[in-house]
């Protein structure tokens, strides 16, 4: 089944938008806007998955889209925002690698994943190829974000965006079974709760969620 050019273009636009928003995350160095970007990221994911559901004629993917929209675009960002406000965090994210450098690295990663995926999936149809390649880019960018930020909340956000990339890839590749989907969603939720509790605990102990405080506590000065 080869999709019509318009359907392909729209799917491509949403997936490409997701990569673009990932770059926005890399660039954003304040917490509350970062959470907004995550919300936008998840919204784009929901739209993309919904479009996939439409062109693949797979109603269960709509459920995925609703989960993405409900949990990741609304509930989790709101909770994160409350957390930031209640804990009176510094609103600035300390970065380990400079923004420009990070952006350059990100561009390299996208080039790498494009080059690799387009070659590996040479036999599949165009829609899947683009989707999988862009999904890998999103995953790598999320990982890059986790690596280059020192703040625990921004690492949580990086983790969420990795998960978004996985769902994008899964939805493009003829859809994951719904069971897998739901379990992934729940595991993300559980991870979110655990990380949230963990953050409060860290804060109680050290009066900050900056991970460097942990290092100082272990007697390491760097």
């Amino acid at each position, binding site marked *: 089944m080869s999709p019509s050019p318009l359907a392909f273009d729209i799917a491509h636009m949403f997936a490409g938008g997701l990569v673009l928003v990932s770059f926005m995350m890399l660039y954003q160095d304040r917490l509350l806007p970062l959470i907004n970007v995550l919300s936008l990221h998840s919204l784009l994911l929901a739209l993309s998955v919904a479009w996939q559901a439409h062109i693949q004629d797979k109603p269960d993917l709509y459920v995925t889209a609703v989960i993405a929209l409900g949990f990741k675009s609304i509930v989790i960002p709101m909770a994160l925002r409350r957390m930031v406000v209640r804990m009176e965090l510094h609103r600035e994210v300390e970065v380990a690698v400079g923004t420009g450098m990070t952006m350059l690295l990100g561009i390299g990663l996208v080039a790498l994943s494009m080059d690799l995926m387009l070659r590996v999936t040479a036999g599949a149809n165009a829609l899947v190829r683009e989707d999988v390649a862009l999904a890998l880019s999103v995953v790598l960018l999320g990982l890059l974000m*986790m*690596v280059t930020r020192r703040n625990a909340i921004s690492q949580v956000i990086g983790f969420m965006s990795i998960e978004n990339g996985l769902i994008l890839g899964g939805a493009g590749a003829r859809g994951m079974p719904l069971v897998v989907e739901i379990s992934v969603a729940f595991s993300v939720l559980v991870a979110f709760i655990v990380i949230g509790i963990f953050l409060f605990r860290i804060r109680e102990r050290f009066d900050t969620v900056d991970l460097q405080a942990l290092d100082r506590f272990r007697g390491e000065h760097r």
Partner: protein
Amino acid sequence: MPIVLACVAGLLAVSALSLPLLRHRAATAAVYSACLAISLVLCAAAVLSIGQADSETVLPLGLPWLGAHIRLDPLAYAFLAIVNFGAASASLYAIGYGRHEAEPARVLPFYPAFLAAMNLVVIADDAYSFLFAWELMSLASWALVMARHHAAKTAYAGLVYLIMASFGTFALLFAFGLLAGAHGDYAFDAIRAHHLSPGLAGLALVLAVVGAGSKAGLVPLHVWLPLAHPAAPSHVSALMSGVMTKVAIYAFIRVTFDLMGAPAWWWSLPALLLGGATAAIGVLYALMETDLKRVLAYSTIENVGIIFIAIGLALAFKASGLPGAAALALTAALFHSLNHMLFKSTLFFGAGSVIVATGEQDMERLGGLIHRMPISSAAFLAASMAISALPPFNGFASEWLIFQSILVSPQLPRMGLKLLVPAVGVLLALAAALAAACFVRAFGATYLGRPRTTAAGEAREADRWSLAAMLTCATLCLLTGLFPGIVIDWLQPAVTVLVAGQMPPQAAIPWLSIVPISASRSSYNGFLLFAFVAVSASFAAVVVHRFASRMVRKAPFWDCGYPGLGVVAQYSATSLAQPIRRVFATVAFAAHEQAEMPPPGDLRPASLRRFLRDPVWHFMYAPVASAVGASATLLNHVQFFTIRRYLSFVFVALIVLLVVLALWG
């Protein structure tokens, strides 16, 4: 078969039942009595049924598609008898000895499990059950070694033992993997039907030598043995030395004679070479040692070497088509296994009694115990004579059989073996002579002379149970030495199965002699020799007492003009070993002495220091240990990175893999 299985299950049940009873005062006596009864039943069943046909069964345990194969054949019966007699005597000894245990709860649950595991190894008939039982045996004995974990060095001994035991099991695992082949079935029947190419057979043989040899204590895999055996309570030491090493020897015999099929002549080389080295080096170690239980442990290494020499000879003869000679050598190996179980148990029981009576196990702090502990010293003396291969005891009978099979070696077709076997025979003779020296030293320093410490002077004789165990084993040492023909005939079914030949039936030979090959060649009559020794010794005693004075005279000794030297001026264990140390250990252990004389006018005492270097540890284990330590130090930094750094590792690894895929995918 049902009796054997029920007994093994009974031992496991005793192990489980002992848990709730641990706090109870009677727990020690109850557990050891139960073990004694079960072991006696097993031993009797094994002794009586060795000639019967094989029986096998498959229990629905273990791997679902394999089950637990159990098989009782003559070889299994022979070793069941050895294992369970040792277990019974150790249990009898422990009924008395166990009362002195500070923390019985650390021994009681593991002891029956250890016995059950050793029985299971012997009766297992598939690789999975075998390795499971083998590992259970290792772990249970490790727990018993760690029973006195407060003592210095016990934890170290336990660590070394655990590492070596895992290493040995690993080697056996690969050996069975090779034997079973790529698509093989792990039941021993399937392994017997599977034939290996010579290269793979050689590899499997090496792995079997490493696996079984590390448990038995072959040099250079013996390092754990002199640490772990003495660290355990004495009845467990007796079991580990007397019985567990035999289980390892069983494993080697089972793999090489049974599972691997028809042997090639070079299969005998590892057993002969390592056996010869082990016998000679083991006894040299024993001579350098002053800790009584460590002396016994090193002597175990020596005896394992002797048994491996006999096994190697049997392999060589079997491969060369000399079934009669192979039967002789294999009988000698099995007979010596039995004998070593008997006398080494007695010796460890004696050492345990000494430790209980004095709290000392260094021979330099003992002495004169023959006056305080006459009965146990008599048992220790009998066992010492047996292990030194003095007629009419059993050690002589079995070592004589080994020498007889060495004397058959000129019939071997291979020139290499013809040259090698006499050389190994020389090593064996050397080991036997040094073993005699070693036990003269051990008995003399411990029991003779005058007590070197007040603890040794106030020792009290061991309790009734311990004495009963010691005397039973010592009496059996004598009896099997007097009537070796009975044991040889009893072992023939096991030997016949393995080498397709047998020794001439000894029961038919008049005057209770034994004849290894034919009457015209050589024969030995232990009973006649004993009668001669007894008559001539009594006659000499009568003559001496009749015509000379029978008075005991006590007089001061010549003190070189320094009065008040006291008891330390006796011959010590170290000084007795000095000539041998100078002759042999200068090369083997780089032994040297350093005398330090203070200048005239200085009141410091002069000192003499001895230096020994364990070559095996120095050249084989120390480099490995330091490499492991260095890499652990390097990797230690990895433990203290930040979360972000760990994530970066994951990230970089992922990127590198993707790039590799992109470049060469």
